[in-house]
């Protein structure tokens, strides 16, 4: 394409291929064909990933800002309400109520008014029953003769005279909203822009912080426990190390729920560990240790579950380290510790890096184990996401929480790449 400037051979003009076209161009064409062929080879996988992974993720993220439901369900009201002054203290006038009557009548016909009610109820408790109640009655009205409607709406429910109800409708009438993201960081759209939620409703920032700190703690304890095991695996004779490998992999073949429940039985106050401690007299019977339904329980159970993801990358990296380096270091006078710390350990860093990234990212999104053994202090942000997906049906908020989590993971990944280097990660 850019073969007009000929920087490779300024004296003789462009170098030509056998058929007379400039070599550059024919090379580019050949390369393009090659790339196309390569692309076609990976096309099935690419399309598969697009359809089953990238598109759903994008679709879910879109929900965190999408808010078309208000203007679609109440098109006339939204237009009529545009001039209303939300800062004042009078509810809108008859024109808006007439528009609302027309909108709700159509919406009730299509049964979308309750849907809108549930949507607005996330922002202002009470809207759900307000719309459900109104839909039933408005359906019976004759739009041409039954006016004025303001009175009639106030008859159905006094809340229609409440400024906050109208403020909510007006605030959430644009097709896009920042409301979900604000909610995800414990804020809300007030009358004068974003503001913090009341103290006793703030939860998400705390949960994000807790999720990150606990995932970090889990990653660190996986490193501490996994490193020696990986070293043994890499250095023991084949037969023993194979047996050990099976022990490492065994948890993989056991159901997650079984493993989590087993920890419950071990750690609870009337559990096996406490029983043994009481029996040998280390702990008195009325002061049994609390090891589950708190952060400790979550960290223990999740470290156990995620340990193989740490051991395997470390093991495969350690296996590829030539033992003669250590011997060389020692023959040159290094102590055991120096040989390990200056020679062996730096070579295992890529394995630690790979394991840490795997464990950290898996931990940050875990929700079954924290839900079962986390109690009140050991639950993660993912438990809230699951709650909003399956119970409260507030998918917009769930998407916003997930979006933030995704951003956090990407930031961590970027930071890792910046400080350690992603090229340094080795899975084997």
């Amino acid at each position, binding site marked *: 394409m850019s073969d007009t400037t000929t920087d490779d051979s300024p004296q003789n003009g462009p170098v030509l291929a056998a058929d007379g076209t400039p070599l550059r161009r024919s090379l580019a064409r050949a390369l393009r064909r090659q790339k196309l062929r390569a692309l076609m080879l990976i096309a099935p996988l690419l399309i598969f990933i697009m359809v089953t992974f990238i598109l759903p993720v994008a679709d879910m993220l879109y929900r965190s800002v999408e808010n078309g439901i208000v203007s679609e369900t109440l098109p006339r009201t939204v237009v009529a309400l545009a001039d209303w002054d939300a800062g004042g203290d009078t509810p809108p006038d008859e024109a808006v109520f007439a528009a609302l009557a027309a909108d709700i009548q159509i919406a009730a016909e299509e049964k979308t008014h309750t849907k809108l009610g549930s949507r607005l109820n996330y922002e202002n*408790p009470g809207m759900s029953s307000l719309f459900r109640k109104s839909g039933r009655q408005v359906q019976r009205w004759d739009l041409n003769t039954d006016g004025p409607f303001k009175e009639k709406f106030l008859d159905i429910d006094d809340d229609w005279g409440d400024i906050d109800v109208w403020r909510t409708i007006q605030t959430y009438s644009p097709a896009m909203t920042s409301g979900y993201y604000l909610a995800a960081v414990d804020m809300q759209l007030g009358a004068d822009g974003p503001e913090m939620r009341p103290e006793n409703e703030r*939860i998400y920032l705390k949960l994000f912080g807790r999720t990150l700190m606990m995932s970090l703690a889990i990653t660190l304890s996986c490193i501490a426990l996994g490193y020696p095991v990986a070293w043994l695996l890499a250095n023991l004779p084949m037969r023993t190390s194979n047996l050990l490998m099976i022990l490492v992999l065994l948890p993989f073949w056991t159901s997650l729920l079984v493993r989590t429940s087993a920890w419950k039985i071990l750690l609870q106050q009337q559990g096996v560990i406490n029983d043994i401690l009481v029996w040998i007299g280390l702990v008195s019977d009325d002061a049994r240790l609390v090891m589950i339904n708190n952060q400790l329980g979550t960290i223990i159970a999740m470290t156990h579950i995620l340990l193989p993801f740490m051991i395997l990358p470390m093991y495969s990296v350690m296996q590829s380290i030539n033992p003669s380096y250590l011997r060389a270091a020692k023959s040159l006078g290094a102590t055991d510790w120096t040989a390990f710390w200056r020679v062996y350990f730096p070579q295992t860093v890529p394995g630690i890096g790979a394991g840490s990234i795997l464990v950290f990212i898996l931990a940050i999104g875990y929700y079954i184990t924290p839900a079962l053994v986390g109690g009140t202090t050991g639950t993660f942000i993912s438990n809230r996401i699951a*709650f909003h997906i399956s119970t409260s*049906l507030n998918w917009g908020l769930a998407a916003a929480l997930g979006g933030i989590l995704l951003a956090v993971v990407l930031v961590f990944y970027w930071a890792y790449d910046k400080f350690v280097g992603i090229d340094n990660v080795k899975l084997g």
Partner: protein
Amino acid sequence: MKLTTLAAALSATALTLPAVAEDMTIVSWGGAYQTSQQKAYTEPYTEMNPDFNAIWDESSGEAVAKLRAMDEAGNVTWDLVDVEGPDAVRLCDEGLAIEVDVDEVLAAGDDGSAPTDDFGPSLISDCFIPQIVFSTTFGYRTDVEAWGDSKPEELCAVFDLETFPGKRALQRSPKKNLEWALLCDGVAQDDLYDVLDEDGGVERALAKLDTIKDEVVWWSAGAETPQLLADGEVVIGSTYNGRLFSVIEEQHQPVAMLWDYQVFDFDGWVIPAGLTEEREAAVMEFVKYATDTQRLADQAKYISYGPARASSQPLVGKHAELGIEMAPHMPTNPENAQRFLVNNLDWWADNQDDAEAKFQAWLAQ
């Protein structure tokens, strides 16, 4: 010769195919509850209609989210879904379940009463076809030494750490807990939702819960409390009455029921929106059979949940395997239902998110 037989066989299958294809995907909770539905509903129904084939899916726990996803994808694969009352209200609000005229669709009671009267208060949503009444109530261990001779006889024992020391198990959800807390904070039953509606009402309930917070193990699956009680991990805990029945009567653990102020909930069918007419008609026919007086009474032979029809109550008999009389184990039994609560679904539909946010923030403190 062979060819003609083959052709005949083929045409025969082609003719009978539409009748054979009476597959119905029924979504339920799995476990003992689903078994009771199979024994009481689908097995006798299959005997009458050999072509009928029930395919069970144990997804009721995530039914609301899954139905919404199916609806968005435009491909509803479920025919009949068993959900709890509040979920039915939500599905109805979202337009994901169809409205059902119970008087038209369901069978009249054996005593001739119209379905509307027979089901009575359990008809909590236009989309909801009730099956059972279950309750969330407390069970306590009968062998706690620290309690001496006293045993919990009323709800507020749960909040009384002096007379009844030990850990409690409560559901990790504001629903029911807020009501119980207010009752034991001196609020009259009739004023519960007025108090909750006031500014500071939810906070008042949380403050009461705060007095026992350090002693509470929070559960999220109904099976947790029975395990916690059986292991002695807690001395008193809330769960569904059917779970306690199996701990006490089937596993013979030293546990007893505390029925005081049990909270009634209803469980029943909803029919997803977006079925073809043919499928919908088949579902309606099955539902009519499965919710008639005898069928609902039969279900109580297999699980200790009360039938939603008044006309079924007198027909409740003995447990099919244990052979014990089931009536005393029903939450609706007058002896057990001297004092009970029914969640105000309207209030919860409006305030669930708000109360949940406050409850979770309080838990995380």
